[in-house]
């Protein structure tokens, strides 16, 4: 019993530390001209091989910046293997893609364009298409002063637009700023979120998106060799099923869940995480409270804010 007491004291000490979650800033500084051009590109199918797909096709602005379907459909109707991560608040991620293979937004932006399963347009071709379009050509030149449009320029514009895709003023953020109170259930949910250990991985501005973690750390899960995990990059046995922790911002809006879209509901996802990554079987009550808390992470939608 004595030991338990000591443990509680240590835990309380830990609780006394600063909140592990930080509110989303109301504005990330961005270049307006570039962002406007980026937005145009984001919604323009010109960047897909057959002029059918836009960035927004999969990063649905009205669906939390992610896709409604488990596996997004690329050009020629092909299915993408990985679940589409949300584009919202991506600017706060420490790296991009599920396995963090892109260090910056602009590095990420080009990936889907030339991915044969997604937009399937070689980057040089993409640049040529924009070059052929007088309006794009003029707008690009006005901004970059480069004689020709390069893939880098395209990426820069899209990345600049993505800086505007943030969702501040969620209920929890306002709570953190002392602007509102959480309900009792929400408070209990937040307490569980911390005490159960969810917060170890899901912390910071994005409540995630700032470290690599193993899916099934306590109770392992099956490894699918086709997926883009860290192992796909490092080929280290240990890196199997290690992913960049996804953000929990707007999590209520971005079903289905996980890299393989294996959970259709948030409750299921929470339960799975509790089991595989915390080694706990969460009770229905605990799941309810956690989901209640997670709902407070939904912020203002960028389209509602319409800053551009």
């Amino acid at each position, binding site marked *: 019993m004595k030991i338990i007491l*000591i443990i509680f004291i*240590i835990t309380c000490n830990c*609780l006394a530390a600063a*909140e592990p979650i930080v509110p989303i800033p109301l504005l990330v500084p961005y270049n307006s001209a570039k962002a406007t051009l980026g937005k145009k590109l984001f919604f323009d199918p010109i960047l897909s091989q057959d002029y059918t797909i836009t960035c927004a096709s999969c990063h649905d602005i009205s669906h939390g910046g992610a896709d409604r379907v488990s596996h997004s459909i690329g050009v020629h109707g092909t299915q993408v293997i990985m679940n589409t991560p949300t584009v919202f608040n991506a600017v706060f991620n420490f790296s991009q893609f599920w396995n963090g293979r892109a260090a910056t937004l602009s590095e990420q932006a080009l990936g889907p364009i030339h991915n044969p399963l997604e937009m399937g347009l070689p980057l040089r071709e993409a640049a040529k298409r924009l070059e052929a379009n007088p309006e794009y050509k003029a707008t690009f030149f006005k901004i970059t002063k480069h004689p020709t449009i390069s893939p880098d320029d395209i990426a820069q514009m899209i990345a600049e637009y993505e800086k505007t895709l943030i969702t501040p003023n969620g209920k929890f953020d306002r709570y953190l700023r002392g602007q509102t109170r959480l309900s009792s259930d929400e408070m209990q949910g937040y307490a569980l979120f911390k005490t159960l250990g969810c917060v*170890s991985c899901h912390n*910071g501005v994005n409540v995630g998106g700032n470290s690599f973690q193993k899916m099934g*750390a*306590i109770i392992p899960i099956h490894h699918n060799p086709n997926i883009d995990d860290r192992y796909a990059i490092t080929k280290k046995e240990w890196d199997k099923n290690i992913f960049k922790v996804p953000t929990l911002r707007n999590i209520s809006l971005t079903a289905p869940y996980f890299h393989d879209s294996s959970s259709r509901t948030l409750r299921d996802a929470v339960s799975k995480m509790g089991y595989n990554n915390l*080694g706990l079987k969460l009770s229905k009550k605990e799941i309810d409270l956690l989901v209640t808390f997670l709902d407070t992470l939904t912020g203002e939608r960028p389209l509602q804010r319409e800053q551009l």
Partner: protein
Amino acid sequence: MKLSYKLSVASLLGLGAVTSLFLFNSFTKNYFAQRNGISLEFKAIEVADRKLDYQILNNSFFLYTNQDDVNQKIKEVQYATKTLYYNPHLLEGHPETRHLLQKYTVLLDQKIQTIYEFQTFNTVIKNTSTALLVLQQHLIEEKNIRNHDEQKLLEEINRISGSILLAKNGMDANLMASLHLSTKKLSHKHFNDPKNEELLQRALQHFAVIQQFFPLYINAFSQIHNPKIAIALANSQKMFLDESNNELEFINYFSYILVILFILTLAIIIHFLFRTEREIRLDTLTHLKNRKAYEERISRKKNLALILININKFKHYNDFYGIKSGDRLLIETAHNIRHMKFSGVNPTYYRLGADDFGILFELSSNQNLESFAQEVLSTFSQIPITIDGEIRTPSISVAASDSMPLLETADMALKSKKQSNLVIYHNGLNLRKIILDNMTKVHELKSALENNRILPYFQPIVNLSTLSITKHEVLARIVMEDGSVRSIFPYLHIAKESNLYHALSRTIITKSFEVIAQHSGDFSINLSIDDIVDEETTTIICQMLRQYGTIGQRIIFEILESEAIEDYEKLTQFITLMRQYGCRIAIDDFGSGYSNFAHILNLSVDILKIDGSLIRYLDTNEKAITIVETILSFATRASIETVAEFVHNEAVADIVKRIGVHSAQGFYFYEPAPKPIAP
């Protein structure tokens, strides 16, 4: 060398020195700024790295952490490293430092990868610790522990969980490893209650996971804090300091060079100053020392003697050969004087005037000054001076003096020379008295002119056939302050030297005319060639001639034949002009000077006045008679009237009458008087 040239060279050097100082200053300033900047950047990396380490420690210690902070710190270290790596100064001259920094960057990248792994391990361990607490809580809450064994089992779970937390917070790998056996034993135990059994299985899983992860966690932690990363950075910084020290050495050398440049500049300026100092004491033409140097030497040294050398008739040489050749002569003469054998002690050589050279030397009391002067005179002429292929060794006069002031006394001696080209100054020369006398005479003459005490006197001229007075010669007299009357002759030379001559001439001429106008008979007035070439004087003469009507027919102008007449044209013009007024022309002192018969004929003079120096000796010297007879025969043939001057006794009077001179004057007949005697 010109002063302006020296000044510009000196100021150029100064400007160069100042510019290099400025450049050096800004270079070192810039250098140290960059050096300090790089040192600060090294420090920035070190600090950022420390902060990252601290953040890791923080993350491993606290349960709830924000991993954004770690990522932020990673970015900061990366940024600081990149900034330094691409520092332009480092890029330019510190390849080794960059190489070592590159090594650090590689280690840093490894560290960052390790940090990502550590984050995973850390989270799993945190979650396990948290989960164990939750599991224990659930077990206690179930409250359906049946027996002692189950109670023991629960306590064992609690003990292991507690130890795990201790091991985790103490970073104690041994304690964690020691739990391995206990957990293995536990895996064989069971709870009866299925819920409890489920919780036990979860706990066992956690025990297994934490025991698997903990060594990885510890390993990653120690790798992150591996001192060799910090050492790699320190090595790079040390290399930078070493490389910088080499550069510092360069700066040192540069500053030495700068100092040397400064000293050199100063030396050159000092050299110029010395040169200028020397040059003011040198005569530019002959390169002998000049008057200034002479003054300095005589003011410093006693027992000196001066030999003054003058080129005779240098003015004539100049006029004849031209100034350029005159300069050549001066140069050659100076060179000769400088290099001729001279036995005086410590001689120094000077150019003291236009054609005056000096040899200053030390003279002891037992030495003979004259022998040194004689030596100079004789030695000088031994060395011929050749100019334009002709030997033009000048004749020189030498004066010597050992009486102060040397230059003045020697100069007086030189001026006083009569026949010989060698004069030694001694008090017996009375040169000082002469000068003093001259000064008195100038004063007397001036005073007489101002106070109307210059008067014309008249000496009658007697016709030797009739013994009647036919004309008068006008003679100037000066009346002294005490009333005594003196001949003007001793004053004439003084008048010419002191610029009083023309005033004197004009006074006499004007006064003579006044007297002549009131008397009858002919009058002869003395004119020198200086009077004739002076326009103002001739104008006054013309004015007088017009003013007094026909007076011209009674006027005879006596022109001094002894003078070297250079401007015959002027003379001819004057004579022609005077003849228009009816004046006649006489040549004075004929037989003493040039006695140029051709000129006499050309000028067609009317009267010849035979020089007194011939007349005076007629009664004692047969040769004189011959000369006078010759003159007379010439005059007779040319129909020129003759007058004998200085007839002082009866014997002479008889002779001049006998040999056929027309007229005569002298004390034997009449002395000069203030008024003419009526014929």
